[in-house]
C-alpha cells in the first residue's frame, strides 16, 4: 500500500551527499559550536542574544539554545543543535522540511515546515527547536557562520569550530607509512623479514619464532631483535601495525578506494583466530623444518616482490590482492582477525605502558561517535559511549594509529599511562549509577 502511492520522497527527494575526490583526503568538516561546562557560569547571555536574533525581542524562551542549570552541583550545560553528521531530525521530519546543507548546517525550510514538532521528538540532544512563546519551530543556523552566542559569551565557554583545521597526526602517519613502505619494500631489498643496515640488524619476530621451531636452534642475533621489538611494543603498543607495516599501508590505501560490501561470516569473526594461526605456524615449522607461514605472509611477499627476483613471482604475489580483498568486508580485517605477526605483537602489547582513554563526559554521544567509525580495528564501542560510559579499549588490539585522537573534535580521546586513574572525563560503570 505504501509503495503504490506517491510519497513526500517522490515530491521532495532527499539530496544524496555528494562525495568529491577531495573528500577522500580532506573530509568535509562539520561546523558546530563547542561548549566548555567548566567555564559556563549560567548567565544566560547566549539565550538572550539568540532570542533577539530569532524574534527581535528579549525572550530567552524563544532562543535556539538553552542553558540547563543544576543548582545543587553548580553546573550548567548549554543545549543546542549540534548539526549532527547524520541528523535524526532530517530523518523524522514528515514533510522533509529539514535539510542538511552542503556546508553541513542543518536548516529548516519555512515553506514546508508545519511546526508539528516531530523533530523535537527525534532530537537526541534535546535541542530547543520549539519556540517557548509562539510554539513555532525554529532552529540554530549558526547565524550563517558567525554565531552571536559565541561572540558575546563573557566567559568564553562557547566557541565556534569547523572541526580541527589541520589534522596533523593524519598527515604524519601517512607520511611515515609511505616512507616505511618505500624503505621496507624498495630500499632494503627483501626485508622486514630481516635486514642489516651496517651493524644494525633486525628481523621479524614471527619469522624468528618459526625459525626457532624449524631449526631447533636459537640464533643470538634473532633473539636480540626479538627483544628489541618486544621492548618497543611494550613501550608504544602495536605501533608497527598502524605506522610501519607495508601491508597495513596497502590495506589503508585499498580501504580508501573500495566500498564495504559484505559481512564476514560469524565463525571467522573471532580475534582469537590470529593466535591460532600463530600457534599453527610455529607447530608447522617444527613439523616441516622450514618457516611455514613466511611463504604466504603478505608482508613478506610484498617485501620480496620488488628487486632482481622480479616484481611478480607468480602465485606468491596473488596473496596480496587476495587478502586486500578482505577489505570489502571490514576495515583491516586481515589485521583484526588473522595476522600472526600482529598476534605476536599483541602478546607483547599485553604489557602495554600506554593506553587510550575516551572520556565519556566530554563526548557528545549522539551527534558524533566518529571515533568508533574511524577506528580501523573496530575496538571502540560506540554504544557504550552513547550510554555515557567510557569504553574500555583493549590495547592488544589497538594499533596505535591515533585516528580517534585526531578525529575527536571535543578532545575526549587521550593517551595516558596504564596506571593513571581518574582521567578527566572518564566515566566508568560505578560512577554513572550514582
Amino acid at each position, binding site marked *: *500500500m*505504501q509503495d503504490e502511492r506517491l*510519497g*513526500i520522497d517522490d515530491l521532495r527527494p532527499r539530496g544524496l551527499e555528494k562525495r568529491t575526490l577531495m573528500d577522500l583526503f580532506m573530509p568535509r568538516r562539520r561546523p558546530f559550536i563547542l561548549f566548555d*561546562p567548566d567555564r559556563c557560569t549560567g548567565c544566560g547571555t547566549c539565550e538572550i542574544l539568540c532570542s533577539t536574533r530569532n524574534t527581535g525581542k528579549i525572550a530567552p524562551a524563544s532562543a535556539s539554545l*538553552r542553558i*540547563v542549570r*543544576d543548582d545543587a*552541583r553548580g*553546573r*550548567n*550545560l548549554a*543545549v543546542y543543535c549540534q548539526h549532527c553528521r547524520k541528523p*535524526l531530525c532530517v*530523518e*523524522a521530519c*514528515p*514533510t522533509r522540511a529539514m535539510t542538511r546543507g552542503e556546508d553541513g548546517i542543518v536548516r529548516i525550510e519555512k515553506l514546508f515546515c*508545519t*511546526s*508539528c*514538532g*516531530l523533530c*523535537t*521528538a*527525534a*532530537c*537526541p*540532544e*534535546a535541542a530547543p527547536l520549539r519556540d517557548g512563546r509562539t*510554539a*513555532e519551530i525554529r532552529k540554530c543556523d549558526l547565524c550563517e557562520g558567525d554565531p552571536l552566542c559565541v561572540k558575546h559569551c563573557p566567559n568564553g565557554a562557547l566557541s565556534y569550530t569547523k572541526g580541527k583545521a589541520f589534522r596533523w597526526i593524519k598527515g604524519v602517519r601517512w607520511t611515515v607509512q609511505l616512507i616505511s613502505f618505500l624503505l621496507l619494500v624498495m630500499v632494503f631489498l627483501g626485508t622486514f623479514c630481516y635486514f642489516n643496515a651496517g651493524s644494525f640488524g633486525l628481523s621479524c619476530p614471527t619469522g624468528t619464532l618459526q625459525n626457532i621451531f624449524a631449526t631447533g636452534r636459537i640464533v643470538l642475533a634473532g633473539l636480540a631483535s626479538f627483544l628489541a621489538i618486544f621492548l618497543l611494543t611494550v613501550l608504544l603498543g602495536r605501533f608497527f601495525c598502524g605506522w610501519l607495516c607495508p601491508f597495513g599501508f596497502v590495506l589503508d590505501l585499498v580501504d580508501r578506494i573500495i566500498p564495504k560490501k559484505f559481512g564476514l561470516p560469524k565463525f571467522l569473526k573471532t580475534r582469537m583466530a590470529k593466535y591460532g594461526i600463530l600457534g599453527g605456524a610455529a607447530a608447522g615449522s617444527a613439523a616441516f623444518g622450514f618457516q611455514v607461514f613466511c611463504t604466504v605472509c603478505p608482508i613478506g611477499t610484498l617485501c620480496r616482490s620488488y628487486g632482481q627476483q622480479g616484481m611478480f613471482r607468480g602465485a606468491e604475489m596473488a596473496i596480496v590482492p587476495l587478502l586486500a580483498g578482505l577489505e570489502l568486508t571490514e576495515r583491516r580485517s586481515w589485521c583484526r582477525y588473522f595476522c600472526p605477526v600482529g598476534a605476536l605483537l599483541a602478546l607483547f602489547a599485553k604489557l602495554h605502558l600506554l593506553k587510550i582513554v575516551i572520556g*565519556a*563526559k*566530554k563526548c*557528545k*554521544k*549522539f551527534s558524533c561517535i566518529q571515533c568508533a567509525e574511524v577506528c580501523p580495528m573496530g575496538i571502540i564501542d*560506540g*554504544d557504550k559511549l*552513547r*550510554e*555515557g560510559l567510557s569504553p574500555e579499549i583493549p590495547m592488544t588490539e589497538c594499533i596505535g594509529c591515533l585516528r580517534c585522537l585526531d578525529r575527536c573534535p571535543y578532545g575526549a580521546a587521550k593517551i595516558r599511562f596504564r596506571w593513571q586513574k581518574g582521567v578527566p572525563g572518564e*566515566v566508568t560503570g560505578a560512577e*554513572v549509577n550514582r
Partner: protein
Amino acid sequence: MAGRDERIRRIEKESGIDRCVECGRCTAVCPMVEMYVNFSIAMSPRGIIKKALTGEAVAADRNLWYCTECNAGTDACPQGVSCRDLVRGLRRLVLDAGKPEEMNVCPGCGGPFLAVPVEDFVLGRLKDEPPNVKNWLKLCPACRREGYLRRNA
C-alpha cells in the same frame, strides 16, 4: 458528567469549529497524510471537526491520537478554525480523566510525552538507529536535557 460536557463545548467554541465550512484545506495540508499508511477521513482534521460538530463522542475516539498538533491546518483555514486547539483541548480532557493507552508516558518523569502512533512513526523512520538511541528518544526532551546535564557537565 455535566462538567465534562461543558468543557467539551468550551473547547469547541474556543477552537471556533462552528465556523467551519468544510472546505477541507486543513486536510490538504495535514502532514498525517505522509505519516500514516492507514490515513482516513475519520483521522483527518476535517473528520474530527465533523464528528465534533455532529455531537458524536469525539473525545473517546481513537483517531484523536494520530495528530501531531502541528499548526498547518490552522494556518490554512480560511475561517480561522483551529483544529490543533480542538485536538489539544480534547486530549487534555482525556488526560485529566486518567492516562489513556494511546498516550506514551516518559519513562523518566512519568509525564505524557507523545501519542503512540506519532512515536511509532518517529521510531519507524529511525529504525536503523541502534537500540540505545531509540531508548533515549523515549524520554521527553526535558528528561533528555537532565540526563545530559548529569552525564556531561
